[in-house]
């Protein structure tokens, strides 16, 4: 499926994956990863076909409830194939799984670049649902 954003210079024969990583601000590969998935300020969308990065607002971050569900919806709407974060709540996990999005756990990575490198090296394990957020 052709992405709606970015995805220029798509190389033939390369499997194109779109990875979402929560980010503290709009920036670059040197930007810090946000500690939360549902309530992250922004999401970095990394295209594996051309190593391009773009940032989107997480419109779910300041909603009163179900931020994880809203954030998962945003990932699905942006045609994410993979989401990598430190922590997923049970609702986000269920929503992402239903969307067929692969869920990967981050551990001690700090910058988006580190998370992306570890993904490419196959070092990221699949996540399990953790406890939810605060109410």
């Amino acid at each position: 499926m052709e992405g709606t954003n970015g995805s220029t210079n798509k190389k033939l024969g390369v499997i194109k994956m779109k990875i979402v990583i929560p980010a503290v601000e709009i920036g670059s590969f040197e930007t810090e990863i946000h500690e939360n998935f549902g309530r992250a300020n922004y999401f970095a969308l990394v295209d594996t076909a051309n190593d391009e990065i773009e940032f989107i607002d997480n419109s779910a971050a300041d909603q009163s409830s179900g931020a994880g569900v809203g954030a998962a919806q945003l990932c699905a709407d942006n045609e994410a194939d993979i989401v990598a974060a430190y922590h997923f709540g049970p609702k986000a996990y269920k929503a992402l799984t239903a969307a067929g999005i692969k869920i990967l756990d981050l551990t001690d990575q700090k910058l988006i670049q580190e998370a992306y490198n570890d993904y490419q090296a196959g070092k990221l394990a699949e996540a399990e649902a953790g406890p939810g957020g605060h109410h």
Partner: protein
Amino acid sequence: MNKEISLSILSGKGGTGKTTLAVNLALALENVQLLDADVEEPNDYIFISPEIEKREVESVMRLIPEVNDDLCTACRKCVDFCEYNALAMMLDNVLVFEEVCHSCGGCKIVCPENAITEKEKELGKIRHHQLDNLDFWQGELNTGEEKAVPVIEKLKSKIDHSKKTIIDSPPGTTCPTIEAITDTNFTVVVTEPSAFGLHDLKMVVEMLKQIDQPFAVIINRAEADSDYLIEKYCQQKEIKVLLKIPFSRKIAELYSNGIPFVNQIEGWESKFKGLYQKILEEAGKYERNNSN
């Protein structure tokens, strides 16, 4: 039939003495109804009806949407409508997140295909125990549920205006607390003479003033060298302190054994009766001022 008054008992935080006051006051009076509306953690039963779990149960239900996938065209109107992210559209299927659903029914209304119906889910329970001189009701929120207000609403539908009603409210200043105290004639705020107690008392006072609810304060775990913390604040704000329950080993021991101290320690029954008279006076003053 005489109309009796209803009284809500409140504190800024848990562990201040709401249960102590509610239970002992209820047992000191006659023709009383005690409603435990602290539905996330009801504990009046420990002192009143330890085997409440065996008593009659009424379910409190709420409605949650159910989507018929055969009729759904994935138009997404329901997902876009839901303010609480209780619905998501994943691979053209609507997912329902029951925990965050507020049961507003809006998704059913906006669905152009009539693909959404509603089903009932148990949110909590109401239990009841009629004792000799006390009509005891308890609301309980089921584990995993977040919406306490409908349980409290249902509990309050049991109010019998021919009885003195005492409502043990959820602590704090949020929606469940306000639901519990709304339409009660008077609120008694329980606090303790500590910096925490004062801080949380101030929050509660601010909330009560906003909703124009008449109230007074009682100090629990009162001690001569620290009561000034609360008394000074109450004087400044012209708030009455109606009673002090002392910091006492005897009271604490009885509490830890689930025994109300009102019947165990000489003099307390008449003190609680006196407290009730003061509450009636204060509630009466408020009513007169507001009818002028």
